[in-house]
């Protein structure tokens, strides 16, 4: 037994040593693993730990404002009071919501959305109950705060457009970032990923978006495993967006809107003839830019996109219209420059001309008789222009048109601009594969047929005519950042290639249109001395007048369905001597240019001259742009 036990003990001791050795080895593995994790790979795990606990949150910058030329805000930011509910801070979510519902009405579907969001999110995440609260509601909630545990009021910023819907095209609107925007963005801005961030979607808001947007700030937050914020580690404020100052004058813009408002569909552009700065640009119908910001319902979106009047289209830059008689200046200049007619040379109008077996009519059925250039412009005689366009040829006309800014985009700082069309035989051959007809030259000679222009182009054309400079239209006057206005560099405007003599002849013709008794726009002249404008009306046919109609009776515009009525156009510059401003007005299916468009243009132009910042006081109190002395 003793021996036996001793041998058992020996075996036990030996095996205990082996066991102990094994345990030492295994502890060695643990120590080695500790070394591996805590020394060799430590830096990697430190990074991962920081990634765990530090959450970067972007702080959206304040969007820059859009200002008019005098610094009056056209688009600005308003404080947006939101009421939020933090579920964990209230004992009974339903009860709190009901109590809140008695103070501010919460519609049923909103009620359901709120409960759904509360269920979906963690308890400490605030859920938005309502946005854009007015002061009354805010104070009502604040007064009852003790009965509303977990309800907090939060102030954000929301874009606001003080101007009406008619300026929406000019300024555009902001809205949430779409997937498409994210893909198309090359700025690499993380801001776009920020929920609730708004970017410019049209107009100046879109064109100047990067300037207005600013730079995002960020805040480093320590969060726990559930995402609850424990504390803020550091904060870097963003840089607010720059204010963009436009060339637009709010006062004139308002008048333009006022004058267009009762028209179904119309556009007006006022431009500085010397610089190309746009003073006013309006298009009706418009849309409410604030509605896009808060989000449209499906029905609202359908209504707005299916509206035949296309409220989303900025007709001033995207609307294409046959210029009608407003194109006659271009035709006349082409003819004069190429010497196919002399200004004093007369052409006989007997109400129509014949070419081949086609008959081209004058708007005046029985004709104007003998007319020289001045008379032809004054009375807008069609056969005179049939004749000279036939003589000069379509290519020369198109070339002159392009010289005056027609037939291609002007490059204004607005999206979706269209270029219009200056037709040529080459274009027609390419486009339709058909040869140009001589008659088409005649039609183009009175600004009809293939010729298409935008209201903006007509304003550019008139500006170039009035100033003799190849001005380009633009909307941005400068950028305001850090307190100072930094004017945008305006390249010096070269002179347009046309002799001053020709230009003066045409301007005189336009003066005759407005300021002589036989002029088509004489009733729509500015009577105040020194403020006179010189214009040209245009009435472009939408529907060809049939032979039958001509033989019986041409229907008056108001007797025709709206869609078939003529477009009314008017272009003008003022003052007659030393022109400063040009205007183009198009009233879609408005009827006669001289009766419908001219009075609108007159009223806007009159206001423009009165508001001239250089202090223009008319002929009797001249303070011209150089600020020279006043006459007594």
């Amino acid at each position, binding site marked *: 037994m003793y021996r036996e036990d001793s041998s058992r003990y020996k075996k036990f001791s030996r095996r205990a040593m082996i066991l102990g050795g094994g345990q030492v080895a295994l*502890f060695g593995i643990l120590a080695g693993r500790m070394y591996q994790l805590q020394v060799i790979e430590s830096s990697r795990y430190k990074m991962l730990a920081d990634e765990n606990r530090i959450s970067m949150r972007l702080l959206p910058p304040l969007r820059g404002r859009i200002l008019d030329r005098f610094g009056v805000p056209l688009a600005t930011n308003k404080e947006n009071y939101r009421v939020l509910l933090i579920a964990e801070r209230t004992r009974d979510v339903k009860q709190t919501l009901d109590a809140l519902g008695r103070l501010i009405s919460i519609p049923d579907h909103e009620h359901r959305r709120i409960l759904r969001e509360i269920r979906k999110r963690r308890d400490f995440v605030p859920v938005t109950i309502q946005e854009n609260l007015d002061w009354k509601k805010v104070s009502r909630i604040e007064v009852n705060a003790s009965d509303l545990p977990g309800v907090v009021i939060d102030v954000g910023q929301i874009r606001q457009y003080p101007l009406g819907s008619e300026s929406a095209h000019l300024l555009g609107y902001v809205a949430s970032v779409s997937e498409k925007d994210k893909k198309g963005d090359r700025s690499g801005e993380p801001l776009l990923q920020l929920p609730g961030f708004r970017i410019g979607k049209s107009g100046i808001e879109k064109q100047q978006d990067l300037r207005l947007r600013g730079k995002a700030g960020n805040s480093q937050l320590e969060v726990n*495993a559930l995402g609850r914020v424990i504390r803020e580690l550091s904060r870097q404020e963003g840089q607010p967006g720059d204010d963009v100052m436009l060339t637009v004058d709010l006062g004139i813009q308002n008048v333009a809107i006022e004058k267009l408002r009762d028209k179904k569909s119309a556009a007006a552009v006022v431009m500085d003839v010397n610089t190309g700065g746009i003073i006013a640009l309006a298009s009706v119908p418009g849309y409410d830019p604030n509605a896009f910001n808060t989000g449209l319902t499906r029905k609202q979106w359908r209504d707005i996109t299916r509206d035949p009047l296309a409220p989303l289209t900025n007709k001033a830059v995207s609307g294409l219209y046959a210029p009608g008689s407003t194109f006659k200046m271009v035709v006349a200049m082409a003819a004069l420059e190429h010497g196919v007619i002399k200004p004093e040379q007369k052409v006989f109008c007997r109400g129509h001309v014949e070419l081949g077996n086609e008959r081209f009519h004058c708007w005046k059925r029985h004709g104007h008789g003998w007319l020289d250039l001045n008379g032809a412009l004054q009375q807008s005689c069609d056969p005179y222009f049939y004749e000279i366009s036939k003589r000069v040829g379509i290519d020369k006309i198109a070339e002159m048109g392009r010289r005056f800014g027609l037939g291609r985009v002007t490059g204004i700082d607005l999206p979706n601009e269209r270029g219009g069309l200056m037709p040529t035989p080459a274009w027609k051959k390419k486009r339709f594969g058909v040869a140009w007809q001589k008659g088409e030259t005649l039609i183009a000679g009175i600004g009809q047929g293939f010729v298409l222009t935008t209201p903006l182009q007509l304003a550019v054309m008139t500006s170039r005519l009035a100033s003799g400079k190849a001005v380009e239209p633009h909307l941005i006057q400068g950028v305001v950042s850090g307190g100072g206005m930094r004017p945008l560099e305006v390249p010096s405007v070269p002179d347009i290639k046309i002799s001053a003599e020709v230009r003066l002849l045409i301007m005189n013709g336009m003066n005759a249109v407005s300021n002589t008794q036989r002029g088509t726009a004489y009733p729509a002249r500015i009577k105040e001395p020194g403020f006179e404008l010189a214009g040209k009306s245009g009435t472009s046919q939408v529907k060809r007048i049939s032979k039958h109609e001509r033989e019986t009776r041409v229907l008056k515009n108001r007797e025709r369905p709206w869609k078939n009525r003529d477009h009314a156009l008017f272009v003008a510059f003022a003052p007659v001597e030393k022109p400063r401003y040009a205007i183009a007005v198009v009233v879609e299916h408005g009827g006669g240019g001289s009766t419908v468009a001219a009075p609108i243009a007159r009223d806007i132009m009159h206001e423009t001259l009165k508001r001239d910042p250089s202090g223009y006081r008319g002929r009797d109190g001249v303070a011209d742009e150089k600020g020279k002395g006043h006459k007594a």
Partner: protein
Amino acid sequence: MRVGSADREPMTIGQKLWQVNWFLVFFIIILTAIGCAMLYSAGEGSWNPWATRHIIRFLIGLFLMIMVAMTDIRIWMRHAYTLYFLVLGLLIAVEVMGVIGMGAQRWIDLGVIQLQPSEIMKITLVLALARYFHGASLEEIGRSTSLIIPSLLVAAPIVLVIRQPDLGTAIMLMMTAGVIFFLAGVRTWKFGLVIGAILAAMPLVWTMLHGYQKNRILTFLNPESDPLGAGYHIMQSKIALGSGGVFGKGYLSGTQSHLNFLPEKQTDFIFTMLAEEFGMVGGLLLLGIYAIVLIYSFAIALRVHNQFGRLITLGIAGTFFFYVFINIAMVMGLVPIVGVPLPLVSYGGTAMLSLMIGFGFILCAYVHRDVRVGRHVSGGED
């Protein structure tokens, strides 16, 4: 072999208390103190809810440990089987209650304490096996037939524990039994045979595993594959450890632990928190203290003059070792997560009590190291 005077004359209580290995007790207290400090940190710098209760349990455990150590080792040997079958009965009871209660059940609720029989089984199995091998000569152990009874003693609780299902405890029981078989002198080739058989049975076991157990093993093999799902715990634990570096982030400043990225930081992942806050230095220090406790146990085992005492000492030391190793290896991503606490440091009542009772047996063996224990209970000595 020295035949002590205590051999015949029973020692007085005072003599026995003097004989207790107080160095071992000292290190047990140190480990518990470390546990308290970590639980204080886990409670975000508060004694509640864990640290205070940890101390109370320890004090109860300390009392039980001394009681066990004071009791004559022969009494323990005489009742080894009784205790074993008692606890086995409890395991069956838990199983039956689980069936009735329609779900996994590990606890017996005694009102004051929730008793976890599988934890107690870790001790009583050691007692039963030690008693069996104490009574068997090397020649007998050499015969395969004599291994049938101890194998059954091991298999019965393992089957019950697996059914609970508690894979971690089952593995612990198996390995503890393995240690005793090994120390008792079972031929080494037989271990090879068993390991081979287990490997062969793996595919079968795999099909019997619960979904979450399979997941744990799969995510252990590749934790990055599912960082937000089942692999989350392993990943976060490794991040916490790794980011602790050599010197740690400082007491109460572990970001992973205090921002709740670390799961179960008061129980299974308490080592992670320690290593995050005190770095590798802290981790190695704790490992060193565990090693000291183990070394003492080995020293005790070699000084005990009866096979029963030797086997329970190293059997329980083996259990203790597996607790430490599996827990630390698990939080460092070396073995799958099986839910084994870190002895004396993790918060948990039954584990604390069964460990303290276990140390009671080691101390008991030391106190009675010179007592001659007969081969058979009835026989005294021969």
